[in-house]
């Protein structure tokens, strides 16, 4: 069976060749906006403030705007359309109910500075979400303020700083494993600390002896995720927590992989002090092509005094309020209260699934990942793409394309591009850095067994084809709106806006 080379095309050949921007579709005089009539005396700004030339925004009427963005949308692959096993991203189904509840006017037209007395529904929703997230994490004190995982990480590092400074303790370093997601070390730098890397042992977990050697009283924190970016659960987590707490440092949990463990274990019970959640991963907020998301945090008792303000609280009389009376708070990390629209969706998800459903989600995510790995073994795919660690995975697993590169002359990149022709979004490539030619696969729980089988078959097919003629994959994709792009040219001579 040869790969269908045109599964993603909705455009004709001729349409495909013409990427046209909305500015190029503009014509002076066209418009979509009709201003309300001026019902007051006209007043003008003093000349010295007035913009002389209007900005060169598009001039285009509604039908053409709609057509432009509709046509553009068809140049995107998306989760509602197909399988998206991007490791570390948890591309699970985005329930459609969530759009309906997020757009209720009581939510969407509510001003953040409305008197809390008149925003009780919103505050109760936030409070209930906090409680639920606290239960999932095993840490009782939650702030919903951070707007993404990275933002939550920054909050965690700043909370750690406040905690140490409050004790008169000057610490300068934060430890991260060499498998850490790039946001972790980037956050450490923004937090004013030095990054120190901790090694990984032969089972894929933290090298405990290396940690022991590096953990001293200059260390403020260890940032980890468990399961980690290799998809394995670190069995030594209790010992790790002991070492870190033993030197008085905090233990931070990057919640990117929380989808593996809900209801089975909790970061708070593993010994973590601070946890961030990615609501756009585990809790189904749609990714939107790069956000919005949210990165709420849950913390232990000893970190609670430093939490951002305001905090959403429940008063003795049962009403909900914003509490600004937090003398040790680190302050705020953004305006207003956070990405409330995201909270609405995540709260609806938690209500829909409940305790049983959340646990089932994690269990099925782990089942699906292990099954897919087993299927790949069955089909012989793992001969050329062996798993980096020969053990049970959790919700994701990482394969190494090194044998494939040696034997077929095909790189993980080529495999990924050929997968596009098969109608799948490729897994995450070249991360984590520890694994040569890495392919990080996370199917999530919302996929059927049939989809997993299809995906495994597609990988097997690409390898078979690659053994016969590696040039095909090296020049893939063929059927997508554009083929391989000149990224070097884009970086050398960046053109990041249209000249007008």
């Amino acid at each position, binding site marked *: 069976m040869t790969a269908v080379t045109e599964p993603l095309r909705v455009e004709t050949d001729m349409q495909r060749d013409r990427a046209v921007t909305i500015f190029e579709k503009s014509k002076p005089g066209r418009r979509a906006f009709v201003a309300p009539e001026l019902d007051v005396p006209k007043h003008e700004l003093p000349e010295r403030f007035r913009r002389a030339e209007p900005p060169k925004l598009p001039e285009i009427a509604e039908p053409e705007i709609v057509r432009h963005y509709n046509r553009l949308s068809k140049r995107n*692959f998306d989760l509602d359309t197909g399988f998206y096993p991007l490791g570390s991203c948890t591309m699970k189904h985005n329930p459609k*109910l969530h759009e309906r509840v997020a757009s209720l006017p009581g939510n969407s037209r509510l001003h*953040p500075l409305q008197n809390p007395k008149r925003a009780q529904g919103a505050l109760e929703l936030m409070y209930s979400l906090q409680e639920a997230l606290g239960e999932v994490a095993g840490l009782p004190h939650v702030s919903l303020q951070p707007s993404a995982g990275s933002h939550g990480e920054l909050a965690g590092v700043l909370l750690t700083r406040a905690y140490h400074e409050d004790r008169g303790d000057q610490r300068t370093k934060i430890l991260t494993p060499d498998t850490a997601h790039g946001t972790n*070390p980037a956050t450490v730098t923004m937090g*004013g600390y030095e990054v120190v890397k901790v090694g990984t042992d032969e089972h894929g977990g933290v090298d405990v002896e290396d940690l022991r050697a590096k953990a001293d009283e200059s260390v403020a924190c260890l940032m980890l995720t468990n399961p980690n970016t290799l998809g394995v659960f670190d069995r030594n987590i209790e010992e790790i927590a002991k070492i870190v707490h033993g030197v008085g440092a905090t233990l931070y949990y990057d919640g990117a992989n929380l989808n593996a463990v809900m*209801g089975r274990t909790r970061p708070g019970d593993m010994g973590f002090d601070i946890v961030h959640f990615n609501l756009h991963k585990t809790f189904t907020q749609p990714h939107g092509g790069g956000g919005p998301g949210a990165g709420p945090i849950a913390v232990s008792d000893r970190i609670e005094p430093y939490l951002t303000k305001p905090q959403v609280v429940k008063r003795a009389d049962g009403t909900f309020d914003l509490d600004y009376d937090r003398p040790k708070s680190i302050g705020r990390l*953004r305006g207003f*209260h956070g990405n409330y629209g995201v909270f609405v969706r995540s709260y609806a998800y938690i209500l829909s699934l409940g305790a049983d459903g959340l646990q089932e989600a994690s269990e099925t995510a782990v089942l699906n990942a*292990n099954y897919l790995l087993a299927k790949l073994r069955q089909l012989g795919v793992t001969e050329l793409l062996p798993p980096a660690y020969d053990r049970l995975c959790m919700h994701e697993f990482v394969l190494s394309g090194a044998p494939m590169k040696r034997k077929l002359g095909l790189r993980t990149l080529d495999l990924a591009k050929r997968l596009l022709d098969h109608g799948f979004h490729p897994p995450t490539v070249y991360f984590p850095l520890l694994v040569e030619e890495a392919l990080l696969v996370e199917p999530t729980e919302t996929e059927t067994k049939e989809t997993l089988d299809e995906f495994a078959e597609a990988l097997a097919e690409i390898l078979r084809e690659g053994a016969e003629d590696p040039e095909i994959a090296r020049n893939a994709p063929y059927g997508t709106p554009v083929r391989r792009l000149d990224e070097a040219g884009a970086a050398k001579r960046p053109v990041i*806006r249209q000249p007008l």
Partner: protein
Amino acid sequence: MSRYTSATDADRLQMLEAIGVDSIDDLFADVPEGVRLDRTLDLPPGKPEQEVYARLRDLAARNVSAEDEITFLGAGMYDHYVPALIDSILQRSEFLTPYTPYQPEISQGGLQVMFEYQTAISELTGLPVSNASVYEGPSAVAAAGWLAHTHTRKPKFLVSEGLHPHSRETLETTSAGWETTIETIPLDAGLTDLGDVGDDVAAIFVAQPNFYGAIEDLEALSAAKNGALLIVQCDPLTLGVLKPPGEFDVDIAVGEGQSLGNRLDFGGPSFGFFAAQEKYIRRMPGRIAGETTDVDGRRGFVLTLQTREQHIRREKATHNICTAQALNALAGMIYLSWLGRQGIVELGELLVSRTHYARETLTKIDGVSAWHDQPVVREFALTLSKPAAEVIEFCAERGVNPGYAAGENVLLVAITEQRSKQDIDRLAEVLEEALA
């Protein structure tokens, strides 16, 4: 099996067999006994969709939104009209559900949107370089501060009293580990009174218009910056009628994008924009889309200058941001296309006229005076003869939310195109009653 998963009993049996284990529990064998949760999560059981909907509907009904009152609340987010086409485009699966465009061949829709958005923001601000979005306004201000600090290595920030309080607080919180200090520049008659700028200043932060609605003199401020970066938090909808930061020697323009096609949503999600002079391009935070061609010569777009970003540069990245606000930036772009070149001017002029009318009308009331006399665009501050909080309560009970208590006796009143002359007259009525 829930409504979002599909593993039947038969599926599970087959899958467990293929894996070579007996039960799901075996898959969690690596979780040490000591950390296993031996009970179910203490959460209610799952509910059918219609019950979830009912619960959410009941909660929403307990909020007093802009649907339920005539609102003049602003102070950073504004009740503008969001045109229907934005809803229909944003609900498209192809925009709503994909991830960040790491595989550009199948993400040309999202990448081209970013490119168009970057172009529009550059046009609005008059600065050549824009990224594809950050979270929102105040954290964009902090990100600009980070750029200024890493670029100049200087320890001081000068922050105008006219900067949004949330922006100042966010800068303070975010900079806790930078060994920088913040000094406040006072306002004089409503405008930033800069004075001399020392050699140790990394950046000067002002807002345009400022928090009290006054139009700042960016010419004078940029002339006095003495090697510091001038960072301006702008209100994007005013940039149709106000001289943009790019016409002055402003280094970075950031701001809150909510008023561009995004709803209030109790404060988020919206987006932050970040634009700068050419020389800062390699220090920019976040995603940037660039134009290029494919192997067959087709025009296409890719994420570019990625070596700035955390996934490549790690501890030396320009910023830690990964997920930003792409969908909200799309809404912003659609909105700017909908308004168009003429529309943004007309809307701005309408706001200027109605705002002027509102200030004139309200300051005629006994007990109301202007907090400052500077020209304003869409928001202004009033001094009241009674505590603002009290006045707001009184008016709210009568279905009019008069604005934000910016001080004990200070009321910040915001005007959008949805507040007609009639609404303004109604506000005057209740305000007069409140102060009687």
